[in-house]
């Protein structure tokens, strides 16, 4: 494009993570090494390790709304309400048809469908016992739609399906819509209710990619030689994004500025990642931000603690950041909270944004025995690291069917 694009800034963050229901608590737990992983009873499977959130849905919903809606809807409403409050938006003063809601999800509808099949199994599979709420619960736009209902927002509200890259995609899509002038404010990010479907646990187990460990807090261990798979988690992180001039007009607190991004596809396998395309994604994001690799101060990795996936991402990152990047620190948030699927990108970015203020890089925990193939320069292991400068964060999120996303956020400087 030949004209300057509007600058887009982050003006609030609302979240629920397995180890915190506010940005402040979550960040503190990331700095204190507190995991949010615990044993969870999963239908047909027994105890599995999972990241479980304990926010109170009744803070923003009636009991009936919780019963009729979905867990993804409740997570979305909680995060959206927290974000709107944090942003200081006066909802009565805003044009509600000019607010967009863009929520990334890995999948939606599995939880609700499994619940209904289980329910009718108690009635000899007679479908007259099938809930009339099944369709509104399982439409792909459900989480965003529940937010629009709860907040009375009449602008575009939809979900973005992008596997485990979806959290980044929510932010990227909102940035694009704000730049196009389609909306004036955006609520965006990603959510996941995936721990409530046995299918995702069973699928990863069949794939040999479901984490086990006698100590739940040590189960999610990217880059460790003894890593053995993914800890599935629920959660959400929704941001408010605004064009800079609008944010400045209302003297908004600004957490950071969207600097650049890239979304690309592997076109090579259903499940296996492709480090060549991951490298391309990171390099294109840097280009879109007008940055060099050495300009990046924190790289938040996607690594999920699968034996092969971590090595491949490390290979991609080594290509970009392996040499000449003395100020680049690399970490991983999944080591604390597990893999929050559609929420992962958005939650992991949120966990790092406070570094602009406190100049501390949260570590990758549970690395007792670093895998030499994952020994990246700048990897922050087990203990937080104080640094002289954090002006940029690069957030990777990759997903099945070969979707890759890289989002770069920079310190806001007027």
């Amino acid at each position, binding site marked *: 494009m030949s004209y300057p694009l509007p600058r887009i800034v982050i003006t609030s963050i609302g979240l629920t993570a397995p180890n915190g229901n506010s940005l402040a608590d979550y960040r503190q737990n990331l700095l204190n090494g507190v995991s949010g992983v615990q044993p969870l009873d999963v239908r047909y499977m027994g105890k599995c390790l999972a990241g479980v959130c304990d926010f109170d849905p009744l803070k923003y919903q*009636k009991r*009936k709304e919780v019963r*009729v809606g979905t867990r993804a809807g409740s997570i979305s409403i909680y995060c959206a309400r927290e974000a709107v409050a944090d942003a200081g938006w006066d909802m009565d003063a805003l044009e509600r048809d000019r607010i967009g809601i863009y929520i990334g999800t890995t999948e939606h509808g599995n939880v609700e469908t499994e619940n209904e099949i289980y329910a009718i199994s108690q*009635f000899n599979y007679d479908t*007259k016992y099938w809930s009339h709420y099944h369709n509104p619960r399982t439409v792909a736009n459900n989480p965003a739609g529940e937010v629009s209902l709860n907040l009375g927002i009449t602008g575009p509200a939809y979900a973005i399906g992008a596997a485990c890259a979806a959290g980044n995609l929510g932010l990227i899509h909102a940035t694009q819509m704000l730049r196009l002038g389609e909306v004036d404010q955006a609520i965006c990010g990603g959510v996941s209710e995936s721990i409530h479907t046995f299918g995702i646990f069973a699928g990863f187990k069949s794939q040999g990619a479901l984490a086990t460990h006698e100590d739940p807090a040590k189960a999610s261990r990217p880059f460790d030689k003894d890593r053995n798979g993914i800890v599935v988690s629920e959660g959400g992180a929704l941001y408010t994004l605004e064009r800079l001039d609008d944010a400045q007009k209302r003297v908004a607190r600004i957490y950071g500025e969207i600097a650049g991004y890239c979304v690309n596809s592997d076109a090579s396998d259903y499940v296996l990642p492709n480090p060549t395309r991951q490298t391309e994604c990171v390099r294109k994001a840097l280009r879109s931000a007008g940055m060099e690799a050495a300009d990046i101060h924190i790289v938040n990795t996607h690594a999920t603690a699968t034996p092969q996936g971590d090595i491949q991402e490390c290979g991609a990152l080594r290509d970009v950041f392996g040499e000449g990047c003395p100020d680049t620190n690399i970490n991983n948030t999944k080591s604390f909270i597990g893999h929050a699927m559609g929420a992962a990108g958005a939650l992991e970015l949120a966990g790092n944004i406070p570094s602009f203020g406190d100049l501390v890089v949260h570590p990758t925990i549970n690395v007792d025995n670093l895998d030499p193939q994952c020994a990246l320069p700048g990897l922050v292991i087990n203990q937080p690291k104080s640094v002289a400068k954090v002006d940029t964060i690069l957030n990777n999120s990759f997903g099945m069917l070969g979707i890759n996303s890289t989002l770069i956020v920079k310190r806001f400087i007027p």
Partner: protein
Amino acid sequence: MTKEETKQVMIDIIADVASDEDFTNIKPDVRLRDQLELDSMDFLDIVMELRKRHNIEVPEAEYPQLASLDSCAEYLTPKFEALGK
């Protein structure tokens, strides 16, 4: 089952369906929708719960029989009795 017991069955179901509502002063002769925040989907829930919990079918044409607690008792008590309850 007595009519009073039928009314209690209905209150138990409605309390689960409309769990935000206050049932302390509910009047048996007044339409439920005039006293409680119930919509058409809630009535489908009530019909479903009668089916699931008590094996009672309410045909769509007879939904108006569920208008008040008194009308529920008149309509449902014979159905419970027919099931030997």
